């Protein structure tokens, strides 16, 4: 079973997303971090296959977190989760090393995107159109 670390600061959305990943995606969500710093603290003690990161995090942003993770764990796939329907955010995320950019309100697209990334592909939500 695929292990996922979820980095999301909003408690309500984190809660429902956790349940969604477990029940719908049948993933093993090993932990939920509410900030980049918290995630960086947790990762060494976790065995994760993929990290799902909210773009907008307090203090250090999700994109900054990806840059650090790429340096420390270059083989650990990172997938961005965002409410911003912005190709600029998507481009910056992919340039930082993220393997996917998913839109939060595209519920089915979240699972589909994670699967593509796990298959070794780069995935950007269809809603962003041409990238």
């Amino acid at each position, binding site marked *: 079973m695929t292990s996922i670390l979820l980095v999301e600061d*909003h408690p309500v*959305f984190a809660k429902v997303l956790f349940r969604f990943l477990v*029940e719908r995606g049948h993933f093993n969500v090993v932990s939920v971090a509410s900030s980049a710093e918290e995630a960086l603290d947790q990762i060494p003690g976790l065995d994760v296959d993929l990290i799902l990161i909210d773009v907008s995090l307090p203090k250090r942003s999700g994109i900054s977190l990806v840059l650090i993770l790429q340096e420390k764990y270059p083989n650990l796939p990172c997938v961005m989760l965002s*409410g911003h329907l912005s190709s600029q955010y998507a481009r910056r995320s992919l340039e930082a090393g993220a393997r996917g950019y998913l839109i939060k309100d595209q*519920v089915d697209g979240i699972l589909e995107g994670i699967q593509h990334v796990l298959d070794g592909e780069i995935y950007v939500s269809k809603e962003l159109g041409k990238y």
Partner: protein
Amino acid sequence: MLTQPVPVQFNGHPHPVILSIIPHSKATEDLKIYEKQALVFFLEDERNDFPIKTQEQTESTSNELVGQLENQVRHLRQQLQASMEEYESSSEELKASNEELQSINEEYRSATEELETSKEELQSVNEELQTVNSQLKSKFDEISRSHSDLENLMGATEIATLFLDRELRIRHYTPGMRQLFNIVPGDHGRPIKHFTHTLLYDRFFDDAEEVLRTLVPIEREVRGEADGWFLLRMRPYRTIEDRIEGVIFTFVDITRIKKAEEDLVELNATLEQRVEERTYELENANQKIGEARDLFYALFHANPIPTTLNRLEDGAFMDANAEFLRYFNLQREDIIGHPAQEYGLGLGLGLGAQEQSTMLARVKDEGTIESYETEFRSPSGEKRNVFASIQYIKLDNTDALISAFIDITERVNAEQQIRTLAAELTAAEQAERHRLAQILHDDLQQRMFAIQMQLSFLKDAYERNDLQGFKIDFPQLEEWLAESIQVTRQLSVDLSPPILHGEGLLEATVWLAAQMQEQYNLSVGIRADEQPAQLDEKMRVLVFYAIRELLFNIVKHSGTLDATVTFENYDDTLRVTVQDAGKGFPSQEYMRSRSMGHGLLSLRHRLNLLGCTMEVKSEIGNGTEISIEVPLEQTKD
């Protein structure tokens, strides 16, 4: 020899003719024609009884006839002798005649020679005549051409011309005369007095006679029919030999000239009238100029804007109004005649030498520099901003500049404050927008995503007909929706507290105190001896947000959660004081530093713009007291 009579028919009748033949033996060289010839004379027998007999009668009478013939021969011999003598006589005469003829012939030859000479002379004369004739023809052609030229010239000039002889009879006239006199081509030689004319001129004949008598030309302007006018010139006709052979009249049509003359007279009259009118207007204008000059000086001196009059040539003061003297604290008698530069008040106050010369050139070129802003140091050293204008005028034949300025130092400072404030407001607006965006994205939007995802679980439960699952998930959805509604409600309140609209400042502050208590746990006490004075909505909103900002400051910086808001009414102001007993700060230092006192300075600027003042009193360890004074007369509805 002599022959017998031989009958010869003459006119059908026989007549006896005797032939006498004489050989011609004498011949001369002059008469060669007679050589070897004979003279034959036919002599008619005068006897008319010459019988015509028969043969028998002839034989009987032959003897008789011989006798008769012999007689006749004798007779003839005699006659011949006589003839010969006559002949000789004639020959002598012929010889004499011949000599005469020779003489005549010689004379003839002489005459012929003379004739030859004469002929040559005649030929020479003839040649001369031909030359003269050719010259004459050339002259004639020339005269003919001159005559044609003259006729054409007369026609072209359209000058009607009349030639009269000494008896005032018509000698010649041009076609134009037919319009003036009732004359026709056959009237040459008739006295002019016999003709009527169309001219309104009854002295025509008298004048003509006078010209002939005195030989002095006469010139008159005479009127024709249909308002036509002619210039009539009468002159004696003088031949080349200086003989007076009559009078010549010329009629030049001067109708147009006359009309132009009349128009000119009329125009002249109009012009004179206009000149009079203009003179009158000029006098009026001069009077008005005088009045305007008086008015100008009255306005100049009464003008509340500092104004001076300077000579263009050297910038010397010609005049300065009271406001200028007051502004610079100068006396008129001290500055008149002195260059403005002496007082550091050259053209274009505060400009450098190069800018001054550029401006002077512009004024000379364009006449005026409408308005410009500049700054200069007053004689007391204070920096002042002015809004100035310079105008070129000519006053009493002197090129001068009239300069005026308005001191806009206060306005410039206020504008600077406004610009600073506008920048601060923009920054505050941006911060507020960012805060709102954060609220929308970081909280409300996340809740909406969660609700959407929760709905997908409900949908699944519904499709699976899992009522138990539905019952578990649905209350969660309701809770999140309620929280989302609360977030939007709070956002709306934050943006514009609804209690502020329609409520007084005191009620709004009470509501604010409750909000601060609820959100930040700040305890706000409110004191007011009476209901605070009524403020208009604009002022009320400003003061409300000022109080809220000061209460936020207490939450953030004072280190205490107790605050007091006091309202005090005075005659013309409302004083609002926000105070706390927190840790305090060095207020005088803060209010001089843009970096440290940024928030309070910005608030004070905003309040100042609407006529309010803000006083900050604080010391480290002694809490903070900030008072806002609101002018009442400006704020009443």
